[in-house]
């Protein structure tokens, strides 16, 4: 018996194109074009695709930052767009996001403590002492020294910044975390650190991940289920073991064939 | 390109409309009775009733505006009760001197500003740059009306090289050479501040552009440094400079008010100042409107120049 936590049903998102004063109005750009998904509690779904395939737009709709033009998007049976409109805080206690650019997602003029305390206060109404205690716990959870809490973002490396971004998502105590290219701005050695951290947190806290990436190999290491997107549509979806071993769709095969491997014939 | 010009021309229409609304509103927001303001303190009640009717001031505001615009479209800006002649005639007689002065100043400011800006950027932190930077600082801090007086005092009075005011000699003047001699000091005064702003901007833009990746590409191709600077860097810097030239046109047209006053230049600016002190409201209204319209057209030109060098703007 699977337990579906997040469901997308024929979700569409259009962006109006620049209107000309004269001439026919150009049709809207369909960034996401009828995506249906069901995501199981406690699992990781990887969404793979190249730039412009609509994966980031989909991610932003899932956390209520964008509204779908059509279709249904539900978390725990409740409509995400409706929650975003009427009860933003309750939505963000359920679903959070980690962004691609680690430094760009942290306000340069706030200390780490202020950044982490914001969701604690606004979403959970904690007072100052409770906040400080929880901030220390969160820092520990993402393996950062507690005394870093009073530093500013520019004092951290990309990998450390991304840990802070993850800690902020955890602060909301959301069950679902949408990770939009969380490791693609990081160097390989740091990328590995963050991937391991994410896996550990999932086991410990029972999180559900929606992991968005352009990198097939990264998705393969972390995802249980993989959806391949192209031109706003999901062209293939399957368990991770299957999709890489036996790709069905032509586009999936092309992606796999294009990936370059460090050691084609290696065995060690 | 013709399509682009057409589109830009169309975009000018709402701007001109907005400008006319603002001019109209400012004047109709005059506290008290506009007719009295127009006629001054010595008007008789009959005069006032007359003017009120003539100007349609007994009508609601939107109707007044429509009437005003329809007159405007026929070239009628009303009559000046001080000068006793149509506002349009007075403005037309003074438009050319103002445009000549502002145009000359803008050309001097742009040419000088860009040239010095490039020199400062290329010779950054060397003596030419330091000299230019200090002159720029003084330039943007100088009140133009004061600078004008100093120039008059020095070149007009002490050295007596150039005339101290007016646009031509009273007797036997009016030739191109004569006007140019009269133009030199006021245009220089007006150009000084605008030019200083452009020097600073050009220097900054060049330094910024010279750090761009495509400049490194140009150098990697083995191009000579002069080609790198003038073809690859300068063209890109110009994209940022041209809109500011447009902006400076506005400052020059406005600053002309001071300079015309100091140099007794027979332009619209001086007319406006005296019209304001004599409360000749219609003359102010017409003058501001016409100069603003000229400015809108200058901005249209800089817009077009901008899209001429930047294909990305053409596309959008």
């Amino acid at each position, binding site marked *: 018996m699977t337990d579906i936590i997040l469901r997308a049903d024929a979700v569409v998102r259009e962006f109006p194109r620049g209107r000309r004063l004269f001439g026919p109005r150009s049709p809207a750009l369909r960034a996401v074009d009828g995506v249906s998904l069901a995501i199981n509690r406690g699992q990781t779904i990887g969404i793979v695709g*190249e*730039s412009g395939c609509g*994966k980031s737009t989909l991610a932003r709709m899932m956390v209520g*930052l964008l509204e779908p033009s059509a279709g249904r998007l539900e978390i725990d049976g409740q409509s995400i767009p409706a929650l975003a409109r009427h009860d933003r805080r309750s939505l*963000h206690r359920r679903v959070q*996001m980690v962004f691609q*650019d680690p430094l760009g997602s*942290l*306000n340069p003029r706030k200390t780490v403590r202020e950044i982490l305390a914001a969701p604690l206060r*606004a*979403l959970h109404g904690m007072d100052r002492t409770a906040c400080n205690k929880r901030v220390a716990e969160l820092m520990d959870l993402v393996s950062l020294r507690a005394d870093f809490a009073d530093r500013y973002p520019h004092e951290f490396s990309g990998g450390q910044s991304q840990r802070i971004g993850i800690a902020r*998502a955890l*602060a*909301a105590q959301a069950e679902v975390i949408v990770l939009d290219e969380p490791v*693609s701005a990081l*160097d390989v050695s740091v990328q*590995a650190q963050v991937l391991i951290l994410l896996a550990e947190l999932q086991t410990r806290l029972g999180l559900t991940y929606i992991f968005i990436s352009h990198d097939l*190999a990264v998705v*393969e*290491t972390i995802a249980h289920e993989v959806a391949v997107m192209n031109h706003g549509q999901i062209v293939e979806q399957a368990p991770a073991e299957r999709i*890489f071993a036996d790709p069905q769709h032509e586009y999936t095969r092309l*992606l796999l064939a294009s*990936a*370059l491997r460090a050691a*084609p014939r290696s065995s060690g | 390109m013709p399509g682009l010009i057409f589109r830009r021309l169309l975009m000018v229409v709402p701007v001109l409309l907005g400008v006319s609304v*603002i001019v109209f509103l*400012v*004047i109709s927001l005059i506290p008290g009775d506009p007719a009295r303001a127009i006629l001054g303190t010595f008007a008789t009640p009959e005069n006032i009733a007359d003017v009120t009717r003539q100007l349609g001031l007994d009508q609601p505001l939107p109707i007044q505006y429509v009437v005003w615009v329809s007159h405007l479209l026929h070239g009628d800006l009303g009559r000046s009760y001080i000068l006793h002649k149509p506002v349009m005639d007075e403005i037309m007689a003074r438009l050319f001197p103002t445009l000549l002065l502002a145009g000359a100043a803008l050309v001097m400011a742009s040419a000088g500003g860009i040239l010095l800006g490039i020199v400062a950027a*290329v010779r950054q932190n060397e003596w030419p740059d330091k000299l230019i930077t200090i002159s720029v*600082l*003084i330039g943007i801090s*100088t*009140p133009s009306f004061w600078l004008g*007086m*100093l120039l008059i*005092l020095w070149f007009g009075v002490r050295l007596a090289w150039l005339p101290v005011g007016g646009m031509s000699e009273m007797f036997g003047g009016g030739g191109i050479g004569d006007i140019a001699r009269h133009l030199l000091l006021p245009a220089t005064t007006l150009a000084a501040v605008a030019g200083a702003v452009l020097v600073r901007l050009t220097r900054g833009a*060049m*330094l910024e552009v*010279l*750090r761009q990746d495509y*400049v490194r*590409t140009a*150098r*990697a*191709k083995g*191009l*000579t440094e002069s080609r790198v600077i003038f073809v690859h860097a300068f*063209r*890109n810097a110009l994209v940022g400079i041209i809109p500011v030239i447009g902006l400076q046109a506005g400052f*020059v047209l*406005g600053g002309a008010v*001071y300079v015309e*006053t100091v140099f007794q230049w027979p332009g619209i600016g001086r007319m*406006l*100042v005296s019209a*304001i002190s004599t409360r000749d409201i219609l003359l102010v209204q017409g003058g*501001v409107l016409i100069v603003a319209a000229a400015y809108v057209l200058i901005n249209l030109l800089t817009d077009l120049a901008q899209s001429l060098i*930047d*294909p*990305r703007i053409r596309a959008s």
Partner: protein
Amino acid sequence: MSAPALNATMPARLSYPRDRPSAFARLTQNRMASFGLLLLSLIVVVVVAAPILPLAPPHVANVAQRLRPPLTPGHFLGTDQVGRDILSRLIWGTRLSLAVGVFAALIASLIGSAIGLLAAFRGGWIDTLLMRGIDMLMAFPYLLLALAIVAALGPGLVNAMIAITIVNVPFFARGVRGAALSIVRTDFMAAARLSGLSDARIVFWELLPNVMPGIVIGLSTTIGWMILETAGLSFLGLGAQPPQADLGGMLGEGRNLLQVAPHVATIPGLVILLLAIGINLIGDGLRDVLDPKLKSGGLARTHARTDAVSLEERSKGLPLPGAAARLPLAIRGLRTHFRIGRAIYAAVDGVDMAIAPGESVGIVGESGSGKTVTALSILGLVATPPGRIVGGEILHYGEELASATLSRLQEIRGRRIAYVFQDPQSTLNPLIRIGEQIAESIRRHQGKSAAEAMRLAVALLESVHIPDPEHKANAYPHELSGGQRQRVGIAIALANDPELIIADEPTTALDVTTQAQVLKLLNELRRERGAALLFISHDFGVIAAVCDRVHVMYGGRVVESGPVAEVLERPRHPYTQRLLACVPELGRRGRQVTPIPGLPPSTDALPPGCAFAPRCHRAAPRCSIGEITLDAVESDHYARCIRVNDA
């Protein structure tokens, strides 16, 4: 979406000291700004003290004493046309001008910033409406609108101030909106929303602090401007009304006496000038302190080539080149450093590398390893300042490039050695047609006519598989896709049949499917033409696909080098081993990635000995002592590790 910003020609992260001096302290360190500060404080002190200074009453006329020249006893600056003491009037007038300027600037910035913030944050029709209104106001020549307002309200200082305030609101509104828009679109604003913060809190706690420096800079420049403009209106007789006089009013009164008593007009003008200079200097200083773009390294002009110390000094201790002098490229002991502030970053710190004709050599490493700086040092393309070649030789068939004349270097650039850069979006000139960008290089080096060069350029576009090349030669870079742009980049590199192509992360900004095609093309074409290749990448997969040999860099040095297959399959240096273990491998789902603990060292504080030792699982105390050399572990396979043969 897929571009990790790994290519850094400058150290990616500047280290900020924890106890960074406050903005004010940094302002006073700026010589010009402190001069401005001093000038302005002097004026302010005098002006504030005006009521208690022993001054003659400013408004009392004394016709008997009229038009006394400066330095008259009792009237230090002389008297005006009705015999009022100029010094006294000057001080009181300055007081008035300064107060009006500051007050008007504050009000204008307050209203303008509110409009700008609202427009940027709300967007949609509110933005459109507000900004169209602002556009209308800006359609007027600046001063003219102020005149119209004064005309409507009537002359007077308060009315002049209102007019000047109104005409300045649009500048603030526009500037603040622009700055705020770039912030509104950042991820941290989205994150603030996700943190459950209310709109008001987001605007005042997240957005405003980031826009504030811009507002402060705008305010500081505007005060000077406002003083000039209100003085102008008073000069015209539309501002302060007699007997009250601000500086402009005094100037206006003195204008008619210009020839008789020039001091009456020139002295107030001089004070306006000093006041404006003081304020502008402070404004410039604030800009330098608060604008992050200027803060990081300063907008120094990049030189035509990287500075280098003399060859004599650089080649000290190097052995004779020998066979290396016959290679298209031999780098020996190269050291390129960056000086930023007081810190020195040893981005490249002793790199050796040789490339034989037709060979394909890779450099792999993480950001900050020095791979890109190595590549850019070869033809002196590292930005100077702050870069500088401080050691080693760069030999091109025995000719040392860092000491060649600029014109000789320019002959080699693009002709013998050519580059393909990382991001084709920013590395092509946006204003020049792509055909011309290729052709100019052909004209430069082969002296062909314009028509002939363009014909060759079109042929090159065809050979890099640009469809419809004749037509596309007239296209601008923005009209091409990312993959096509990088093909143009390759065409530029191939234009003069160079002997060596240096490709710096050429496919990092591209999607995987495009990357595969571009790599294949690059490799085929350079083989056909017999060009050697130096390929820089952070991606082992890409290196494996194109290179014969590879150098692994860490902390500005090569830590391992050898044939690609050999290094990838049997890495000998612990860093290479651990780095390979970090790379997730497609099709091997069971295999966990194993991260390397810690962070790469900052190159301004490299540890002694092996730079990797602090993170190395096999490090011994002696790893952190003295110089560790790059030694052969097998024929043609080298590693910089003293424990390489320990069990």
